[in-house]
């Protein structure tokens, strides 16, 4: 049987990889890819805590499903924003979208 | 439990005895037996697939008043083997600027997305790969992999026609997934389970009598999901040549083609399972597991024949009409049907089967009639509007 710590460390590593992607990619779409990895690592934790805790308490799975919904909403709005920005400014590089910067 | 009722269990026990007799540990023997089962199923499916090519060509020939393949072997039965030899010895080209790895993975994923569907298809009460209790969702998940394969093929070919074809096909597949998933939920409501074995066991009355409208919507969504005419957006020959598989040659194209045929046959089988009682046919499945397999293969062939019938009878629908049809008509209708079915199911719970069946049937027919009436009103208005525009533009031209 796999101990709980393996799942948690695996999720922490996936979270850190996603964080690196968010912090260091230039392309806005690539930043969103990193966010997806981070959301997934959270979901692994939720599912692992459901399995290793009291199985009849469904909170872990329920909130994993709500994270799915949030991720879908986030991607839809985020990519719509990226496409809208691309249409107006002809770039998706996060550094160059700096009109609001003073 | 005799061999005729549960052949897989008997065969597995027999193999287990042999393997452990050779001094193999039990767990390794189990894995090996499982692998052999998968191998047997896939091999049978591939052989069936070869004959599906022949069936498809013969049937289309009959629809078009021709003879079809009739030179190689009796009734042209050896023709698909000649086709395969030709595909294998054909030059395997890769277009310049193609993304080689993605380009080569795409046909495999396409074939795989069809083959993994058979893991949940119950061929007989005991002959089933795995009786997942989420079987209905599993179909959609496998379809998602097929979508991915198409977009990978279209993008990596480095060809405009391929990319446009992939875009169109993916738009169609993603949108028609919604009514299809909704229609999968209707047998789920009746049976109280998403597992296919449970759905079949619960079908004392075929679900097509309970929900004829659901069966029709599922058939339409399935045809769109398969990418076959009248919804063959990916391969509109007159518009984008061969669509996403234009650059593929030899056996790689063969994998797309065989995958499509097997996919159509598989969805014929799902029609049979979800709405026509699966392997059940007047108690025939109790006699022998082999008869059950024969029944479900027969039903799958009938479903496949209906899909072919639609394909070779109707002309292609334009992409915007098709997406508008899905989003403005089919999806709202599917959601309404789901709600009406759930409501009727709650209202009629505990009544006699006759009242339940006739209530469900009548609500389905009424809903379908209302939907068609609404669509007719809409199209009349639309026609009046379009014709009005035409006359005004004509008058301005004249004036």
């Amino acid at each position, binding site marked *: *049987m796999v*101990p709980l710590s*393996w799942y*948690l460390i*695996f999720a*922490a*590593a*996936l*979270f*850190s990889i*996603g*964080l*690196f992607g968010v*912090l*260091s*990619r*230039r392309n806005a*779409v*690539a930043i*969103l*890819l*990193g966010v*997806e*990895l981070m959301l997934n690592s959270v*979901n692994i934790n939720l*599912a692992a805590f*459901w399995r290793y805790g009291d*199985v009849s308490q*469904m909170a872990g*799975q*329920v*909130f*994993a*499903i*709500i994270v799915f*919904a949030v991720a879908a*909403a986030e*991607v*839809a*709005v985020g990519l719509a*924003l*990226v496409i*809208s920005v691309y*249409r107006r400014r002809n770039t998706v590089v996060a*550094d160059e979208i700096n009109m609001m910067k003073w | 439990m005799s061999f005729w009722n549960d052949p897989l269990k008997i065969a597995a026990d027999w193999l287990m005895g042999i393997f452990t007799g050779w001094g193999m540990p039990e*767990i390794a023997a189990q894995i090996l037996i499982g692998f052999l089962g998968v191998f047997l199923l896939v091999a049978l499916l591939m052989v069936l697939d070869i004959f599906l090519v022949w069936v498809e060509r013969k049937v289309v020939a009959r629809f078009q008043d021709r003879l079809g393949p009739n030179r190689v072997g009796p009734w042209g039965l050896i023709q698909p083997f000649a086709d395969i030899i030709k595909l294998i010895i054909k030059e395997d080209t890769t277009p310049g600027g193609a*993304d080689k790895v993605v380009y080569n993975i795409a046909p495999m994923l396409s074939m795989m997305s069809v083959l993994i569907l058979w893991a949940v298809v119950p061929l007989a009460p005991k002959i089933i790969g795995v009786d997942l*209790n*989420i079987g209905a969702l599993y179909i*959609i*998940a496998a379809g*998602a992999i097929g*979508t*991915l394969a198409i*977009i990978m093929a279209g993008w990596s070919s*480095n060809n405009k026609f391929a990319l446009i074809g992939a*875009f169109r096909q*993916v738009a169609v597949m*993603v949108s028609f997934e919604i009514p299809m998933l909704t229609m999968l939920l209707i047998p789920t409501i009746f049976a109280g389970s*998403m597992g296919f074995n449970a759905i079949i066991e619960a079908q004392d009355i075929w679900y097509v009598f309970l929900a004829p409208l659901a069966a029709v919507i599922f058939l339409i969504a399935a045809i769109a999901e398969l990418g076959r005419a009248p919804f063959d957006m990916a391969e509109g020959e007159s518009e984008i040549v061969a669509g996403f598989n234009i650059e593929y040659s030899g056996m790689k194209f063969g994998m797309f083609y065989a995958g499509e045929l097997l996919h159509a046959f598989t969805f014929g089988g799902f029609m049979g399972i979800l709405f026509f009682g699966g392997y059940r046919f007047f108690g025939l499945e109790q006699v022998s597991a082999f008869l059950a397999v024969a029944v479900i293969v027969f039903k799958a062939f009938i479903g496949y024949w209906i899909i072919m019938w639609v394909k070779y009878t109707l002309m292609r629908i334009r992409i915007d009409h098709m997406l508008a049809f899905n989003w403005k008509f089919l999806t709202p209708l599917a959601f309404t049907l789901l709600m009406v079915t759930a409501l009727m199911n709650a209202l009629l719970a505990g009544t006699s089967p006759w009242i339940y069946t006739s209530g469900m049937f009548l609500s389905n027919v009424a809903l379908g009639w209302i939907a068609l009436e609404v669509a007719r009103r809409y199209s009349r208005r639309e026609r009046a509007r379009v014709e009005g525009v035409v006359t005004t533009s004509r008058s301005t031209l004249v004036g």
Partner: protein
Amino acid sequence: MTGEQIIFLLTALFTLGSGVMVVTSRNLIHAALWLVSALFGVAVTYALLDAAFLAVVQVVVYIGAIAILFIFAVMLTRKDMRDQGPQMNTNWWFGALLSVLVFGGLFFLLQGWSGLSRTASPIPPGFDSISELGNALISPDAYVLPFEVASVLLVAALIGAVYVAFNPRSGDTRK
């Protein structure tokens, strides 16, 4: 080492490797495809955790919808099909340092937690996690409110995405 542990380690390595490729690959389409394989690894992880419903929904939602959406977005936001220029910003080393620190911090925190080496009790026989999940999602004394809020969020996101991405110039000419 049991078979389950071996499968878990292979899955975790596959997922983390794909994750690294997602954040480092120069070609954005490749990054999106690597994301698909990372998400597939996560789906296998759910299956290992006996959360079959989550595993299948992961494939349907993430691979069938989100990854496809990403591939579309990548194709729509490029002037040509090749990626030029650096894909990392100038202070990427800072991001790398921060993410290593986050991982180290999480690892350190987990070390001090007593429940870490817990093992799972076997699923009780006759326990159907899917019907339990369905009941939990719609029963008023469980999670019906978060479920409804999630659906409202989805509708809001749908409307918002259509409004933001709608191009008035290429819009419906009938109006």
